[in-house]
């Protein structure tokens, strides 16, 4: 079965590559973007804020994964189980309080107490305008 699948899948690719006509034009080579000519680089730079939020999400998301096994076995684990999961969450809450007070969850410049002293935008921010529509 595996071999048959491989033959059908790869065979289609190989045969169409060998037999099919090939006359590329710039339009054909271009990335397909809803029928419109593509604009700018797909890898446009984003604010580092997004990475920070993504990282925080990554951590808290995985921690929540521990809740599901506990919920499934809640009755068997009883009060000690509840105590343990509460402790676990208490520790996470300390981390949460830390990122909240440090301003990770604040968006926009006006909520940043350092804003007035913030470093001038470095090359990473300036380059962002080199591509795309904002010439």
């Amino acid at each position, binding site marked *: 079965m595996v071999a048959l699948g491989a033959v059908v899948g790869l065979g289609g690719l190989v045969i169409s590559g060998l037999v099919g006509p090939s006359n590329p034009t710039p339009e054909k080579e271009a990335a397909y973007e809803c029928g419109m000519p593509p604009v700018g680089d797909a890898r446009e730079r984003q604010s580092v804020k997004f*990475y920070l939020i993504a990282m*925080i999400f*990554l*951590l808290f998301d*995985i921690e929540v*994964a521990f809740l599901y*096994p506990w919920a499934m076995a809640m009755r068997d684990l009883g009060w000690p189980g509840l105590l343990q999961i509460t402790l676990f969450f208490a520790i996470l809450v300390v981390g949460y309080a830390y990122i909240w007070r440090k301003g990770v969850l604040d968006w926009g410049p006006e909520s940043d107490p350092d804003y007035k002293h913030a470093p001038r935008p470095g090359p*990473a921010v300036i380059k962002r305008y080199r591509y795309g529509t904002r010439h």
Partner: protein
Amino acid sequence: MPIGYYLALSGVLFAIGAAGVFLRRNLITLLLSVEIMLNAVNLSFVAFGRQQGSVDGQIITFFVMTVAAAEAAVGLALVIALFRHRESLNPEAFTSLKW
């Protein structure tokens, strides 16, 4: 399916990850390679657990995933910090210490 298949797949993945750490030339890809190694190990934990008919293997996998997430967060933070210094993700750009 006999356990050998799972272990072979896990071994291949682990080898791919280990090779990636030394061969790839992009900091993010290096991080991905390490994650592949950890997930290869996860696969063998689950396979061994199933072979023994216990859920221990899957529980261990949970812990490993958590550790991997924490590690990835620190790794990404370091990559961002490095990028701010050199505007590059190529390891060759970082040579202020002898490698």
